[in-house]
């Protein structure tokens, strides 16, 4: 931890890199230990590969099927991208409408919460039934899963504006629309970014679930296909690709956050006590 209140962007890049490495070192070390232990257990006890493949077997499958996996990853990435962007738009719009039109908001908000409690996974077959095996049902499924955190966080952001600020704006005759545009929306950006970070991980889940329910491409399809063949190393290989894809998407959003809202408080998930 640096004592100086320097923002992320102000630190020299070498220092940033060194800090990054030292931050990541414990997690990398632990991962390496787990992988070595895993490999040893498989070899020592002769676990069959279709039950649990050794890390080396997974890597071998990854190398053998990399072209098919890349094609599948592209299909999934497209679903995630469209679904995530649409979730963001829908979530933001819902929050703004609820705040801007109070009466309408009071009617709609409980319904949205109610809808959130419908298990979305169960909707996947219905969407397939309605929209077929293409992109549309996957995107729809992602939106119904991922718009909620965006809407809730954006709502919290819009409503957490200091009332003094609203008074100030009103004291110069600003309309409600202007207060929304100039104060509420920019003020809610840090909240929105937190919601989008949850939404991007939900989007990956939504895409995979959508592909499970019915697809002829994508990483979810690969996983399902491999399971029918008892090709467990391929399942794990696809899982690795899904994880890397999800991680990449997540960091794009986090990078966007640092870029868009540099004034937001830094989030440190594991804060040292005291």
């Amino acid at each position, binding site marked *: 931890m640096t004592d100086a*209140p320097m923002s992320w962007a102000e630190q020299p890049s070498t220092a940033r890199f060194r800090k990054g490495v030292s931050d990541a070192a414990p997690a990398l070390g632990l991962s390496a230990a787990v992988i070595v232990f895993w490999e040893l257990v498989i070899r020592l006890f002769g676990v069959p590969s279709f039950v649990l493949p050794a890390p080396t077997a997974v890597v071998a499958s990854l190398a053998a099927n990399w072209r098919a996996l890349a094609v599948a990853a592209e299909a999934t990435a497209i679903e995630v991208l469209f679904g995530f962007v649409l979730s963001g738009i829908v979530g933001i719009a819902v929050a703004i409408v609820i705040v801007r039109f109070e009466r309408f908001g009071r009617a709609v908000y409980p319904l949205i919460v109610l809808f959130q409690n419908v298990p979305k996974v169960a909707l996947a077959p219905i969407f397939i039934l309605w929209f077929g095996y293409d992109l549309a049902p996957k995107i729809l499924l992602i939106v119904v899963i991922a718009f909620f955190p965006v809407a809730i966080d954006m709502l919290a952001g819009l409503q957490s504006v*200091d009332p*003094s*600020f609203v*008074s*100030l*704006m*009103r*004291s*110069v*005759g*600003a309309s409600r629309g*202007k207060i929304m545009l*100039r*104060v509420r929306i*920019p*003020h809610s*950006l840090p909240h929105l970014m937190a919601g989008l970070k949850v939404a991007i991980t939900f989007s990956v889940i939504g895409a995979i679930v959508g592909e499970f329910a019915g697809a002829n491409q994508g990483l979810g399809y690969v996983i399902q296909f491999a399971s029918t063949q008892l090709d467990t190393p391929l399942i794990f290989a696809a899982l690795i690709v899904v994880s890397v894809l999800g991680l990449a998407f997540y960091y794009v959003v986090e990078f966007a956050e640092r870029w868009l*809202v540099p*004034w937001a408080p830094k989030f440190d998930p594991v804060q040292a006590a005291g």
Partner: protein
Amino acid sequence: MNARVMNVKVAGTAGSDSRPAAPVDPAPPHIAARGVAVDFRIEERRQRVLNDINLIVPKGSFVSLIGPSGCGKSTLLKVMAGLIAPSEGDMRVAGLSPQEAVKARLIGLVFQEATLLPWKNALENAAFLLMTADETIKRREAFERAAAMLRLVGLDDADKKMPSQLSGGMRQRVAIARALALNPEVLLMDEPFGALDAITREEMSECLLDIWERTGKTVVLVTHSIDEAVFLSREVHVMGTGPARIIETLPISLPHPRTEDSYADPAFAAAENRLRGLLIESHRRRRP
């Protein structure tokens, strides 16, 4: 502006009798409340938070509202600012209703919290309300005016600093500059120095007095601090609770210009004692 500043300074130092102390004030009323009452609806019950307020603030005067918590002084300020409509009676600002005064951009507001936008620097914050109030103003012109106001409140090289890099006192200076950039006739301040430490408070009081003397704005200050009220005001309205109203109006005969030395003036101690007595009295009469 420099010439004007010098004039005021010269007039102030050459003969303090050229600016007579209250209560003799020939200026016309700038803010006038007649029988103003405010009811709030709290859980279907009407509660009177302000009762029969009669008050005149002369143009160019500096007036404080002081009283125990819950006496409705902030509510009265909000009525003046057009943020709350009176349930009864009539409020006039420069002869207009508060809503009309808002439209005519006569009112500048400062709150206890500086409420700066964290994503804008000091200069942008100081220009922000002006640009909101006047859509036609050119960006450059708004920034020039905001910069001039930042100099006026004593911030010389903080234009590019973000709010998180400013101290509490500096943030409040930006908030005052933001209000002044509107060039309002009336400055309404709700405990503007309430969140600051004692020394910064005194510094800010002197800064505010200096601004008032230079610009000749009408200032209404809501405060908890007896010192602050005496040091700054020409007139102090003491408010009491149950129901909230003005119980006494006290002219402050402390000579101008007021400086650090004014705290040692016998007139300061006299006014302070009188105010303290009134406040204790109003506190005792408060209903449990």
